[in-house]
């Protein structure tokens, strides 16, 4: 008789456990679908860890940020994947054509095409700042400047299209000098520097990369010309200044984008962060006898110029 009741209790126990497990499992399954964000890393450990921490902070406790490898990306179904860098984006895309991806640390020209074709599913926070801001940073540092020199290859020339159209509203003009092959870079640079009051560099790897940057910065410096851009990383090399989007701001906005995704099922349009800062190479500025206002003042000047122009178009 006792054995019989024991068996009964055991059945009930197992049943309860199963129900609980099932409940948890389904709860978990629900949790997985609702609040997990996957992260595909770039491989640059310091960068990845920094962004990861900031994202976690911004996402808060209701969301889980889980790192995945490229192969694991194939199995994520509808959960959003945040990618760091163009490499991670490409690999994840290849592994899973349908996954919703929020790309970080990518340039506009890289992501634009994807974002347009898969609106809502593919989005991103562009790295860096819009070129018009870089141009206005240059103008804030050299108020007497009116001409901007631009260099590109035939295939990257379109990077500057929007900028060239916008400049006339700010009393600036630019000229694009096209480089067709490696050998032509320095002669073209020399001609560009004799035209422009400063050189504005977009993130164009064909022209501005660790191999060429030395020649470019030295030649410009010897001719008393400053270089603005291509990105914050190059300021330490010798570019006079570059705008950049602070990482915490980028993480905040990424979290917002993810929030929107979870609420309505697709991402907002890819864009730059609205807020930016300026990195300046003080040593180079001093050596060229350029008086520098503090970075905050420079940003203020740029914002003012942008606003006053917007005010004009409203009228």
């Amino acid at each position: 008789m006792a054995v019989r009741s024991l068996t009964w209790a055991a059945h009930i126990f197992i049943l309860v456990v199963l129900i609980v497990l099932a409940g948890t499992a389904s709860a978990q399954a629900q949790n997985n679908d609702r609040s997990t964000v996957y992260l595909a890393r770039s491989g640059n450990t310091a960068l990845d860890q920094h962004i990861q921490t900031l994202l976690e902070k911004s996402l808060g406790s209701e969301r889980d940020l889980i790192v995945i490898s490229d192969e694991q990306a194939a199995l994520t179904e509808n959960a959003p994947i945040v990618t760091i860098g163009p490499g991670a984006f490409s690999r994840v895309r290849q592994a899973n054509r349908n996954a919703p991806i929020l790309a970080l640390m990518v340039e506009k020209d890289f992501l634009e095409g994807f974002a347009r074709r898969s609106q809502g599913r593919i989005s991103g926070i562009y790295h860096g700042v819009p070129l018009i801001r870089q141009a206005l940073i240059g103008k804030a540092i050299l108020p007497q400047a009116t001409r901007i020199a631009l260099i590109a290859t035939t295939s990257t020339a379109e990077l500057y299209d929007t900028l060239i159209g916008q400049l006339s509203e700010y009393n600036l003009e630019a000229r694009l000098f096209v480089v067709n092959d490696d050998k032509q870079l320095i002669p073209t640079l020399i001609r560009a520097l004799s035209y422009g009051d400063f050189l504005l560099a977009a993130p164009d790897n064909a022209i501005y990369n660790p191999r060429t940057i030395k020649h470019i910065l030295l030649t410009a410096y010897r001719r008393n010309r400053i270089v603005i851009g291509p990105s914050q990383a190059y300021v330490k090399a010798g570019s006079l200044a570059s705008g950049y989007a602070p990482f915490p701001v980028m993480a905040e906005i990424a979290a917002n984008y993810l929030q929107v995704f979870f609420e309505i099922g697709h991402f907002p349009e890819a864009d730059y962060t609205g807020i930016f800062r300026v990195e300046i190479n003080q040593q180079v500025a001093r050596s060229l006898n350029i008086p520098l206002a503090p970075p905050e003042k420079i940003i203020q000047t740029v914002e003012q110029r942008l606003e006053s122009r917007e005010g004009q178009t409203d009228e």
Partner: protein
Amino acid sequence: MSVLFSSTIAEVAAQPLLDEPEQIGFYGFNDEIPEVLTTTRLRQPKTRVPGTTTVIDGEMIRDLGIMSLVEVFRLVPGMVVAEVGSSTPVTTYHGTVHYEQRRMQVLVDGRTAHRATLSDMDWQTMPVPMEIIERIEVSRGPNSAAYGINAFLGTINIITRNPADTSGAEVRVIRGTRNYTRTFASVGDVNESYDWRLAYEKRKFGGFDYQIEDDERTPFNDGHDINTFNYDSRLKVNSRFNADIRVGVVDGVNEEDRYKNGELGATGDPNIDVRDYYLQTQLNFTTSQSHFFHFQVSFENYDRRQRWPISIPESAVDCLANDVLVFHRPNQSLCFQPGGTPLTAEVNADSEDSRLEFELQDTFLFSDDLKLVTGLGFRKDTYRSETFFNGRGNNYQSRVFGNIEYTPITWLTLNGGGNWERTTTTDEGYFSPRVAANFRLGNNHALRFVYSKAVRTPDGFEQNPDYGFTLKNVSPGKYSAYEGYRVESTAIWNNPNLVTLGRDLEEERIISREISYFGLFPLKNSQISLEVRVFKDKLRDMISGVIKFDDWSIDNNVDIDQKGFEVEAALEYPGTTIRASYGYLDQDDWYNGAQIYYDDGSINNHEKQYNVELLGRLSAMHSGSLALIQNLPFGLKGSTAYYWADRFRNSRFERIDFRLAKRIFQPRYSAEVALTVQHYINDEPDISTDNNIEDQNQLFLEAGIRF
């Protein structure tokens, strides 16, 4: 069904994570972006330079339509430019004498550029085409600690473009009035380990239009036709070592006029055939971020052939034969009688001098606030001239120098330097110190106090001449005994009483005190920079007098006190640049040498005064420039520059230049055409009544293309 993944969140390390991402790798993932503009490559900001320096960019030289190298110096406050003799250009800071201006140190890429033994500066034959000048730095005031003795009144440092910056090809042609021609071409390339550039320039000019000889307008043979070739290269061995190799040749003719420069009754123009060359190499070592040094070797050879025919009247030959001073005034009627058979011959003023120079300079940055520069230098000057030295000889100079720069507090930088040098022209050693204090008032303003001492030692020719012309190809036959005969200066003195030949010359000394201010004023839409220099200098034992074949009266006999102030300002608006410079020089000078007597024993105050005046020939009280460069519509760029100096002897120099240029930018090349007009505002000749230009408007047309 979702699959559970293990979280790697726990792996997040204990690395300090900051909101400021400076210390984190960025966009160039896994790529190393090199640090290019390091402390060792950057020029000192003007607020930190321990002295007043004027920097003129290569771009400005072109934008203002400056047509010859020496004219650039009209833009430097306190400097003047003039022509002496047969259109020989001369330029100096703070005046003094006009002939043989030898009180400034001139360097081209660190290589001494004045003649070796006749420390004269030959601007016409400078092996530097203006198109390859990156910038010219003029250090105003004595600075032997940095540049050696002879950086007496100041130093001019011409820096040419790095071959890495001129890859591609460029051609430029300029034609102007008075037979002005300048043709420039350069080609160069850059690759991983070797950068090079080859440049050629021809510069031709007719000089002044006429001189006055016996109250008549006479053609002036004072032009030049010079070709220069320059090869500059850099061998980049690795990040710690590279070598600059430079070679150059100058070949051409510098026309001299028989009335100006023809000694001994010249019957033809004593034109100078120039054939100079130089070789230079500088080995640059960077052992670390805070230590680098260079070793420089250069050799320059100046080969001048100057020959002309002469005709000596028979009576003069008789005087020579009888030891009668031929050019002495009382003897004039005796020695210069008409009639008889003149002796014709050929004489020469050939000279070949060379300079071999070594320099080792070491820079050590102990910290951001403490920097030490030290160095050694050695120089051997060799002269060969039958006429000036009756043979050959050598002079040696050796020096040790150092400078320490210390910033004890952020707003104060102290500089202390010295140069210890020994030269065989005086067989003595000299110590020239320099101390400076820079007070930085905010980021953009500095106030400097500078005290420096320097010496200028007499050059080989001043100290040990043996001046005489050897007669060659003598005719007719009755004078054959004179073939190879050397007519010495001692045989023909103009004023034997005033002759100082044989006296041991000593060094000239300068003590300079300066207070200067530099400031940058950033405005909403523009930027203003301003530099003011106030100075008070004592120049002692200056060598004045005449250096001529028939008149040798130089001696350490004049003392000068100079004081004044200089201003340099620039205002940059969008599309407009205005630059102004002004110098005020108040010179007090007096005779302080040995007593000079007339033949009859009475004191010759006239001659004493003349010696004093000679050292004021270029000491214009007011000088300056005003330049405007303006971007114009339709791709045009206009500029105008006004230059003046008041006064040189009896004349005031005033000129206004205009230039209009059109730039064309095409995908594969850039081109430029320009018109320059130089308008001489008054028609008085400067310095000498022989320096005459017929047309007050001089025109120049230029066209250039760069690939």
